């Protein structure tokens, strides 16, 4: 009667003793720099369901906050998903300190958001800057798999921060690294990389840009005169991530959208970045205090 079929391979794990979930295990950690780190999580169902462009909401401990993080990679065979995190606020700094292979995150929910639409564009530029380098990777790979000619453009401050260049080279037909000081690749911003690509390939049909809002705005402005479709991935303040709280509302030229259920990908030429940047500062005072308080408490424990 229970309908056990061969298809039922992804048995849902049942936490013992009531509802308190035992959490999600971190199977691997890698540090790219003193602020950027990678966590690979064991979550076979999520690895199976995840599509490029989607994100998860992570809670590291019982009293923690829920933070949205874009899925940087997923491995269906290993049953893992990968997050690349920049330690900027209290929670991400705390996670940098506490999250090691073998430890657990109390809650990882997702994959959230509408997957990126992998169009049948023949020639695509995938742009990643800072925090956005990792999440643009699955999109580059998906475009490659869909048969597109993929040009990767990634930006870092300097050579020491560069990561995943080998992974990108595997899926990109052309790959441009941009650094502020020219210590790796070309000297300049990702917009310079985009301009280079557009000059060389006038037939580019789509640009995907993920990174800090200022960078995404610059990318959208770079492509606007050329009329090239430009998709950006927005990461506004969120609480539930399931379309209930409305904290993630973003202003588009044609009205209000909610990044967690309508996005996170939007047409970059439609986004009011001014508004997005303002709304990202909503809790800057609280965030500053939280970091200070946490730093103090770390010192006190030493």
């Amino acid at each position: 009667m229970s309908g056990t079929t061969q298809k039922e391979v992804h048995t849902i794990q049942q936490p013992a003793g009531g509802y308190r979930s035992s959490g999600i295990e971190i199977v691997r950690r890698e540090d790219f720099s003193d602020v950027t780190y990678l966590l690979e999580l064991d979550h076979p169902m999520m690895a199976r369901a995840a599509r490029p462009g989607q994100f998860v909401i992570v809670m590291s401990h019982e009293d923690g906050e829920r933070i949205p993080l874009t899925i940087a990679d997923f491995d269906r065979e290993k049953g893992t998903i990968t997050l690349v995190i920049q330690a900027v606020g209290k929670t991400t700094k705390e996670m940098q300190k506490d999250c090691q292979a073998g430890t657990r995150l109390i809650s990882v929910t997702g994959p959230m958001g509408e997957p990126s639409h992998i169009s049948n564009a023949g020639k695509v530029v995938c742009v990643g800057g800072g925090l956005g380098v990792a999440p643009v990777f699955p999109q580059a790979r998906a475009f490659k798999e869909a048969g597109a000619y993929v040009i990767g453009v990634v930006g870092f401050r300097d050579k020491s921060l560069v990561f995943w260049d080998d992974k990108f080279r595997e899926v990109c037909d052309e790959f441009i690294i941009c650094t502020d000081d020219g210590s790796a690749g070309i000297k300049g911003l990702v917009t310079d990389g985009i301009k280079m690509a557009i000059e060389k390939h006038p037939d580019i049909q789509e640009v995907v840009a993920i990174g800090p809002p200022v960078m995404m705005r610059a990318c959208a402005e770079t492509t606007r005169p050329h009329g090239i479709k430009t998709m950006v991935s927005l990461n506004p303040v969120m609480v539930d991530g399931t379309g209930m709280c409305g904290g993630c509302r973003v202003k588009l030229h044609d009205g209000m959208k909610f990044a967690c259920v309508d996005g996170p990908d939007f047409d970059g030429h439609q986004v009011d970045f001014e508004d997005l940047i303002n709304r990202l500062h909503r809790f800057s005072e609280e965030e500053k205090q939280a970091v200070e308080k946490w730093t103090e408490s770390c010192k006190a424990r030493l």
Partner: protein
Amino acid sequence: MARKTIRTIPQERTPIPTQEPDVRVQNFEEVAIGYGLEHALIESERCLMCPAPACVPACPVNIDIPGFIQKVIDKDFRGAWEVIGDTNLMPAVCGRVCPQEDQCEGACVVGESLAPVAIGRLERYVGDQAIKEGWTNKPWIEPIGFKIGIVGSGPAGIACAADMAKAGCDVTIFEAFHKPGGVLRYGIPEFRLPEPVIDAEINNLVNLGVKIECSTLVGRLFTIEQMIEELGFHAVFIGTGAGTPRFMDIPGEYLNGVLSANELLTRCNLMQAPHHDTPLGLGKRVAVIGSGNTAMDAMRVSLRLGAEKVYCIYRRTIEESPARNEEIEHAEEEGVEFHWLSTPVEILDDGEGNVRGMRCIRMELGEPDSSGRRRPVPVEGSDFEFEADTIVYAIGTSANPIIGQTSKIKLNKWGFIETDEKMATSLAGVYAGGDIVTGGATVILAMGAGRTAARSMKEFLGIRDNSVVYENQRDNLDSTLFGIPKTERNFVRLRTG
């Protein structure tokens, strides 16, 4: 004993002990402290034990109200709890948050000449006793091999899960948040519904053998179709609750300091902001737009979290306000300033992207609209401005799009799931109920929908819908109905012709 009449019962409705407004506004303890034994015994005497009670059909989950009140009179509180438990696993929750005045108490015969029997307060008393004493009562459940999936652990999902578990099904609830309870957990503040009460009553569900999977976003992690086709569920109930908050499309809605009531409540109820890591960002002068129960909760939470001034902006009058009278009274006592017949036209900017204040316009009531309420119309030139640093929208929610985005289920033109009167959706074996079907409503209406869906599910699966037999009534087990033991759940199918 002579039959009770309206003249012989205690004439006054027993008041419920309540924290004083100036004290309670400083804490998150419960506002209404609840009946003691004495209160409960006196109040229970006010029930006339009508042979054909009007209160029972007025209850969305049809609790045997005279039945449980009789047990209270007999001081058999455990018995009272078991009577309620037949139809409702959450008396301590429902006794607190149900709008009884529109349901059981609204239909109470005593209410025709005196104040109605305080059914809700009695129900709460019974529920609280069960929690205090740690009563559990495992029904006699014979597994019948059906696997039921419930999406959402709010009131609708809980009610449906309980009924299906009692019928012997293997029930799993999937919850997107990290804690179960849905709106009970994220929406209703501590001072109206303390967390230990939710925990205790959800535990009743776990005692029925229901499994609860948190941090699981159905639709995205797996779809409704996959639940039936791949995960082996024989039937699914969707009770995903509220959707995206509504805004008004007036200037200034994107400023920092503008948020939805659901966001405010989620931050401080579920996430315990600002005491835990989640920030709250609440200002000193808070204006809440709307006048429903959610608006009242948002205002009263704001007062407790240090707001000095809290305004309620509503375009109609107190008469049309959808909130319970009790909630409005409590809010007023605690210091909320009500601005009836006002509607915002603009949220004012401080020049740095934050809220500085609000400009409103006065309204007057015109002709009745389709809802039968008089339509508010703006009074020209009546604009007024006031200072505020937090603006909270509590004007309802739209449909949550996730299930619609990820499944072929039929939605209505507003994006809510379309169901028939038995809560069946366009997908065979898939039922839905609560806010995802009706839009914003109450806890108990969602529970009622969950129970209706459970009845339909049983019909669909061929499960006999008889009353529960508890383990402590095992001597009853031998009794039969039409020669079929009471614990037998599968229909005996007749073959004709």
